[in-house]
Each structure stands twice: as structure tokens, then as C-alpha cells.
């Protein structure tokens, strides 16, 4: 008898890697057996801007015990390939140092302690240059860091008007103009496994094998081909079990891969690098700090006439992924609201901070904070119920977004707002006394938001991601993709999708560990695309394999036999595999020149309610309640989806009230876990999560993205709740006790 489909799509099967993780058997990079591997360490610039004149090695230190590498040891081109070739793997003598954590030289030693000891015996001679640490200084070009204007990238989106004069005409008839400037702070991903990578050269130094903690094996692969001067077959990148990413392991792993592979080549042995927490916080990418100016014209009936937005992000010292982050930021900046005339301008500028980069939400949380603060101000100005106002103005099927994208299917506006409305309950009592006798003020805030799933515009088409479902020669079912599981549960989700497509149990599916030598390039594990885009490829692949097996069974007298039996018989004759490549759904048109059209194939929709209390002695904001209703299309595994939403929600609540990166002269001044704080169990409220399912016709089972959306909304909901409690507007993050005190003092 065929085993029943034990856990089809839509059921909460336990994670397939759950037991390995709770028993400590799961092997992360630093757990792998590598008895002969040496340990790498990085000499960093410590100067925010300058020219590297010399690297001096203390003659009193015994350098024969270690291996040293500099820019001269880079086998290929000294560049970390991303969008532009501006960031070197190691700064060479005579070249510019652009931030304090710029890698200059590398040391490998038999022990970690010796490698770190050797670091102390390297002295850098760097000529200092003027520095730029603020957006304003960068725009004023007090010093040119990038081209002549310091602008890495700019965007302009126009809807319903052709020029600035027409835009201003849109504001002319306004009964009310809501205008404000909003600031969101940099944020550390704080994955609990720090960045970790190991490299080894084999076959007489012809092939380099790199294994490590990463989101995107093929990003690393692409970067290493150029850096090492090797073709695709001579670089193999394998993802080890990865202890969290949240965007932080999208781009920086290429830097570590470069460093361990350079060292391994020189040391003629495996070399691994595992960052200490302080180094990880200081040197790797964080969420872009962002300033958004938002201006909104409303008529007497409360309809939005025009919106004008200017987004400026601090990109840090190199371009890296900043243009793409800015793109997502501006595409979400006008929010999920009806508006005939919209202008969105965006710029990301160069500073001497370490490069800012990908973090869950990827620019959207920054601009969502701004527009949802604006909606709160509009509700207050009009004396309207904040949720009813959002419902009244929200986009629905048949409306167009700021890029003039006509929305059709899978618009969850009414469902998510309705879900929040129905569970909201009574408004919290404004005044109270805490258990310790301290007076408190209470308030409630809501927000409504959306998040485009998958790559922007024609990105998915350009990527043309592929995934494969196969019957191996020993009759097993394999799913092969480069989508990495860094905790989201994607291997379980893929197993469920494949099992459902094939009609077998989840246990019969083996999801292959991503390695560039074993899996096709499915595109990076980013942008809430893994389930919706790659999951769909797996779904199609599984169904094709099933068809072929059934057909084969019919031709070979096995019709009606259990599929596992058929697979065993068919597999014995040779592997049967179905590779599926992404094809855009019909109706997706995007113009990169004007930034108009279908910015995303589909959007997720979210609404959030937050109740807070503010302690009037300590000025601390406590999140008493947080409800998120999120439209995910279809929850392939509801429990895993819930975990994703709750994790993203708490990161957003942390960003709202307690997380921050404190820069001092371009250096992270709070680079340890004691001072760069994230919420603990005790800081987190009981999280209420409502899954809404408005199916996306082209996603597996109707699924669309879920990874990022929960991060977008809650920070604004918190700010709105604090404003409700205190009657004071909070337009900057974090809403720290220090910020609350200062605001109360001013008022």
C-alpha cells in the first residue's frame, strides 16, 4: 500500500531538521570536523577614510608560525562582485580606505589565539582624509567619496503628472496637507551564528571548495569566480547549516569566502574564519538608516489628492546592494493607498560608514514607517478612526499603485483590516498605575501595509531561477535548488510541496543541501521569493515527475502500483529529473526607465494593532499587545509561517523601541551583545498572529511571500500607539526611553 500523504500543503508537519537541531546534532560551520584547518583573522583599517601607505609587520614577532596574505595574494581580480566592482577584498597599498573595518591583510595560524595574537603585531600606515558621516554632508559633498555627487543611485517615480508644476497643481486644491520628516535607524541582523566560512584547495590547487554560513551560494560562486580567476566548475560553494541570516548573510559571505580562499591557497591547507560577535557587529552590513520626507494633499472629503515623497538612505562606503534596497524602499513609499498623483524620489548616498545592506524588508520598513506615520497624522487631523480611515483609502482590486500597476487578484485589504477590526477589543484605558506604583499612559496604534513578493520589476525574469525534482538511481525523490534554509523552514516547505505534487509522504522527499556542484541556480534566498517563486518551480517539477512516472508505469505494466515502487523501478534504469525554469506570469510588464508597471507580481498585505504603556518614571515603552494579520496567499505549513511572522514582528518591535547602532566617528560604538541589544523573552509580548489566505494563482497552492512583510508594519504601529498615549508625535526610531523623555520635556 502507498503511504498516505502524511503532511500535504496546508498542514503543520514538524520541521524535517527539527530533531537534529534540538539534540545539537546539526553541524554548523564551526562544528564541522576539520582537525587540520587553520584559523583566519582579519587586519582592519581602523581609519574611516584615508590612503593605505604601508603595512608593517613587527620584526619581533615570529612570522614563520603564521601565513599572511595581502591584496597582492588575490589570485584573480581584487573585487567583491555585486552590482558594481567598487569594493575590494583587501585594500592594496596606495588605494583608498573607505571605512574603519576595511580588510587590509589576513593572517592564518594553527590556532585562533595565535592568529589573533599576530593581528596585534601588524601596524598600518594610513594617511587620513576628510570624513563624511551624515546624509547632509554627503549630499553637500563636503568630500567626494563616490563620483562627484556621492549619490550611488537615484530614482524618480511619477504617477498622474508629467512635471513638477503639475505635481504642485495636485497640491493646490488641498483642504489639508500632512507633511513630515521621518528617520529610521540602522539595525543589526544579530543572527546568533556569526559569519563563518571555510575554504580548501584540492586537485593541485586547481579547485577551491568553500563551505559556510550563507543565504546565496551562487552569489558567492559568482564573486569567487572573478576573485580567484577560476571558471564555474573550479569553484564549489556549499551552504552549511546556517544559524540565521535575515539579509545579513546575503552579501557579506562573499567577503569571508574571498578571505578564507586566499588564505587557504597561501597556507596550502583548509582555513576557516568564524567571526567574534564584536567583529561581526562592527564590520558586517546593517539596515540602511533612512530619512524620508513625506507630503500628502487631502481634499475636504478626506480623499488623497497627491503624495510627494523624498527618500534618502545612507549607503555607507561602497555601493554593494544599496540601489536595490533603495528601489524596494521607493516602490513601497506611497503605501497601499489610492492616490491619483504621486511623486517618489529616492537617493542613496555614500558615507564613511561600513556598507549598509540587506535586512529583512530591504528598504520597505523604512518607508513604511514614514507613510504609516502620515496616515496616523491624517486620522488625527480629521478626527477619524485610524483603522476606518485606512480601510476607506486602501488599495483594492481594480486600483493602481504608485507605479500605475493595476491590481487584480490576491488583494487582501479587507481581510487583514477586517481581521484586526474583529479582534481589536476595547481601547486601553489611557491612564493607569503599574504594579510598582509608577504612573503609566496607555495607547493604541494600528497600521496597514503591503509588501511586494519576489524580485522587483523584471528581476525574476532576468534571474530565470531554476529548480529540479528528480528520481535518483536508487529510487529516491530529490528536490534540488540553491534556496538555503537559514531557519525559515524552506526545506520542510519544499518537501511538503514536492510530496503533495507527487502524492507521497513528506518523509520520501530528500531536499538536497545547496551546493553549486549539485543544485541549479534558483536565484538568491532573498526577497520573500523562496516559497512563492522557487516553491512554484518545485511544485511544477514534482507534478511533471509524477506524470512521467505514471506514464512509464503504464507502459511497463506497473500502472496503479504505489509511486515509491514505480520510482524504484524507474530509477534503476537511470535518473529521471525535471528541471523547471521560472517564467513570468501573464500580464507582468515593467519599464525600468520610467519605473512604471508591475513592480511585483503580487503583494502580501498586512495590518497590525499595537497597545503600549509608557512608564512616566523611566519613559520606557512596553508593548502590551501586538496583533498581526497577514495575507500570505496560502500557508504551506501554518506553524512555520506563524514562526516567520512572529520572528519578523519581534524584530520590528525591537527596532521600534530598543535596538540601535551607535556610530561614533564611523565606528560602531556598541559592537557587542551587551550594548547592541535585541529583545529577550522578557521584552517580547505575547504575539497574536492571524494568517489570512488570499491565494496567488501562480504560487504553489496559492502561496506568496511571507519572509519580509511582518517586519514592515509594527514599528509604525508602535509609534502611532505612543503618540496616542502621550499626545506627542514620534517620527524617529528608536522610540527609546531617552527619546520619550526628551519629547516629554519639549512638550
Amino acid at each position, binding site marked *: 500500500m502507498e503511504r498516505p500523504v502524511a503532511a500535504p500543503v496546508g498542514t503543520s508537519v514538524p520541521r524535517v531538521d527539527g530533531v537534529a537541531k534540538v539534540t545539537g546534532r546539526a553541524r554548523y560551520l564551526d562544528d564541522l570536523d576539520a582537525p587540520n584547518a587553520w584559523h583566519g583573522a582579519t587586519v582592519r583599517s581602523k581609519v574611516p577614510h584615508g590612503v593605505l601607505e604601508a603595512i608593517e609587520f613587527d620584526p619581533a614577532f615570529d612570522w614563520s608560525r603564521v601565513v599572511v596574505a595581502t591584496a597582492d595574494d588575490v589570485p584573480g581580480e581584487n573585487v567583491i562582485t555585486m552590482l558594481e566592482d567598487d569594493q575590494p577584498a583587501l585594500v592594496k597599498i596606495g588605494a583608498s580606505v573607505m571605512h574603519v573595518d576595511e580588510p587590509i591583510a589576513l593572517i592564518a595560524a594553527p590556532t585562533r589565539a595565535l592568529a589573533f595574537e599576530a593581528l596585534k603585531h601588524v601596524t598600518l600606515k594610513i594617511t587620513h582624509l576628510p570624513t563624511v558621516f551624515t546624509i547632509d554632508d554627503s549630499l553637500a559633498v563636503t568630500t567626494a567619496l563616490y563620483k562627484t555627487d556621492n549619490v550611488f543611485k537615484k530614482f524618480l517615480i511619477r504617477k498622474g503628472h508629467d512635471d513638477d508644476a503639475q505635481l504642485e497643481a495636485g497640491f493646490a486644491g488641498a483642504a489639508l496637507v500632512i507633511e513630515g520628516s521621518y528617520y529610521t535607524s540602522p539595525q543589526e541582523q544579530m543572527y546568533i551564528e556569526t559569519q563563518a566560512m571555510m575554504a580548501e584547495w584540492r586537485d593541485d590547487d586547481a579547485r577551491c571548495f568553500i563551505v559556510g554560513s550563507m543565504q546565496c551560494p551562487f552569489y558567492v560562486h559568482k564573486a569567487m569566480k572573478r576573485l580567484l580567476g577560476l571558471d564555474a566548475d573550479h569553484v564549489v560553494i556549499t551552504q552549511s547549516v546556517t544559524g540565521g541570516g535575515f539579509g545579513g548573510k546575503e552579501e557579506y559571505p562573499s567577503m569571508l569566502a574571498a578571505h578564507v580562499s586566499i588564505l587557504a591557497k597561501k597556507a596550502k591547507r583548509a582555513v576557516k574564519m568564524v567571526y567574534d*560577535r564584536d567583529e561581526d557587529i562592527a564590520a558586517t552590513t546593517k539596515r540602511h538608516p533612512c530619512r524620508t520626507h513625506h507630503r500628502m494633499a487631502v481634499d475636504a472629503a478626506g480623499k488623497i489628492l497627491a503624495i510627494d515623497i523624498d527618500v534618502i538612505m545612507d549607503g555607507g562606503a561602497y555601493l554593494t546592494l544599496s540601489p536595490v534596497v533603495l528601489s524596494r524602499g521607493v516602490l513601497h513609499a506611497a503605501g497601499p493607498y489610492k492616490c491619483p498623483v504621486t511623486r517618489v524620489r529616492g537617493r542613496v548616498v555614500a558615507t564613511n560608514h561600513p556598507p549598509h545592506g540587506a535586512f529583512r524588508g530591504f528598504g520597505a520598513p523604512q518607508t513604511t514607517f514614514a507613510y504609516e506615520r502620515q496616515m496616523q497624522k491624517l486620522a488625527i487631523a480629521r478626527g477619524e478612526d485610524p483603522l476606518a480611515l485606512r480601510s476607506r483609502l486602501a488599495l483594492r482590486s481594480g486600483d493602481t499603485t504608485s507605479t500605475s500597476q493595476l491590481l487584480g487578484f490576491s488583494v487582501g485589504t479587507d481581510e487583514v483590516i477586517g481581521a484586526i477590526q474583529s479582534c481589536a477589543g476595547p481601547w486601553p484605558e489611557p491612564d493607569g498605575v503599574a504594579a510598582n506604583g509608577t504612573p503609566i499612559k496607555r495607547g493604541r496604534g494600528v497600521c496597514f501595509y503591503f509588501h511586494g513578493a519576489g524580485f522587483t520589476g523584471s528581476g525574476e525574469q532576468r534571474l530565470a531561477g531554476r529548480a529540479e525534482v528528480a528520481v535518483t538511481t536508487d529510487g529516491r525523490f530529490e528536490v534540488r535548488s540553491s534556496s538555503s534554509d537559514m*531557519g525559515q523552514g524552506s526545506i520542510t516547505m519544499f518537501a511538503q510541496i514536492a510530496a503533495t505534487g507527487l502524492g507521497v509522504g513528506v518523509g520520501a522527499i530528500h531536499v538536497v543541501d545547496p551546493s553549486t556542484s549539485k543544485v541549479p541556480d534558483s536565484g538568491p534566498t532573498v526577497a520573500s521569493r523562496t516559497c512563492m517563486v522557487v516553491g512554484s518551480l518545485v511544485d511544477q517539477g514534482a507534478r511533471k515527475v509524477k506524470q512521467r512516472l505514471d506514464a512509464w508505469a503504464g507502459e511497463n505494466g506497473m500502472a496503479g502500483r504505489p509511486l515509491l515502487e514505480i520510482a524504484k523501478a524507474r530509477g534503476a534504469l537511470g535518473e529521471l529529473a525535471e528541471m523547471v525554469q521560472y517564467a513570468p506570469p501573464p500580464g507582468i510588464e515593467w519599464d525600468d526607465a520610467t519605473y512604471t508597471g508591475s513592480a511585483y507580481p503580487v503583494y502580501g498585505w498586512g495590518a497590525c494593532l499595537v497597545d503600549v504603556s509608557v512608564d512616566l518614571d523611566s519613559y520606557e515603552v512596553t508593548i502590551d499587545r501586538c496583533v498581526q494579520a497577514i495575507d500570505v496567499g496560502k500557508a504551506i505549513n501554518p506553524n512555520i509561517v506563524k514562526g516567520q511572522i512572529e520572528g519578523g514582528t519581534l524584530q520590528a518591535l525591537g527596532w521600534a523601541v530598543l535596538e540601535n547602532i551607535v556610530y561614533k566617528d564611523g565606528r560602531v560604538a556598541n559592537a557587542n551583545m551587551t550594548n547592541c541589544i535585541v529583545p529577550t523573552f522578557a521584552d517580547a509580548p505575547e504575539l497574536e498572529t492571524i494568517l489570512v489566505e488570499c491565494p496567488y494563482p501562480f504560487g504553489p497552492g496559492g502561496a506568496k511571500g511571507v519572509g519580509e512583510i511582518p517586519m514592515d508594519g509594527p514599528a509604525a504601529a508602535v509609534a502611532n500607539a505612543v503618540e496616542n498615549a502621550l499626545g506627542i508625535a514620534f517620527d524617529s526610531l528608536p522610540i527609546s526611553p531617552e527619546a520619550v523623555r526628551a519629547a516629554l520635556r519639549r512638550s
Partner: protein
Amino acid sequence: MKVTLDVNGAVHSIEVSPWKRLLDVLREDLRLTGTKEGCGEGECGACTVMLDGEAVNSCLVAVGQCDARTITTVEGLAKGEVLHAVQRALVACGGAQCGICTPGIAVCAAHVVDRGLIVGRDDASARALVRELLAGNICRCTGYQLIVDAIITAAREVAR
């Protein structure tokens, strides 16, 4: 110095600097890599083990101090293939995501559950106490909700 440790019921005698962190001895000398390092400063709890029955951060313990003492790591929670109630509940409730903090959480939660620290409370106060007792273990993936669910589930099961 020579240090003798009882780890998960097995006695190990090793020659080691007394200053070496227990965490490193477990991972390097004994190759028990289930215990993780997340910060090296006693903030994240990923390295939590039990030392003479108390949950401690192994990154803050000099191994010399462990001579003739008893240590339980995540590898010692299960009895053979039978998982500890906390481990079973973490899998069932979805309390492990990326999993790097999970060994520390499993050890700390097993301590809390086995000591009966949350028995005899109503659901709300039990959940609040779990949040206080586990506050030394940082998780960045889950939002903690499903971990609290798991610990409450395990505590109920053990109490029965």
C-alpha cells in the same frame, strides 16, 4: 593541569589550561559541538550547559573550576533515542527555527521543567515566568512565542 569532568554521565580526564573556557573544552577537546558560542560574553545563552545541576553560560566558566564536577550538555538531554520532553515539544511546537540558539534553550528549559519551576501556576503566570527564566537565552528567529508554547507543553507533560 589535569581536569576530570563528568559530562553527560561519562568521565573525562584531560590535560588542559585551567583558564580555558568550558565552552571550548566541550567543543574542541570533547568534540561535543552541540553547545554553541553566540557572543562570548554571557549575553546570548547559546552556550548554556548545566554545571552541578544549575544552568550556566559555559563561555563564562574556566574549566579548572569544573574539576570533579558534573556537566550536562544538550547531547545529554535525550536518553538514547528518547528525546527529553522539552526537545520533543520544541520540535512539535516549532520552537526551533535556525536552531543555533536551540541547544542552549533546550538545556535551560530542561532545567526549568525538571526542577518544576513553573508548576502549579495558571497559564498566564506560567508563561510570564517562563519569559523571565529564559531571558538569558536570545533567539532572533522565533519571536519566542512558539518556544514559550513548547516549554509550557513540556512542563505539563512532565507534571502528568
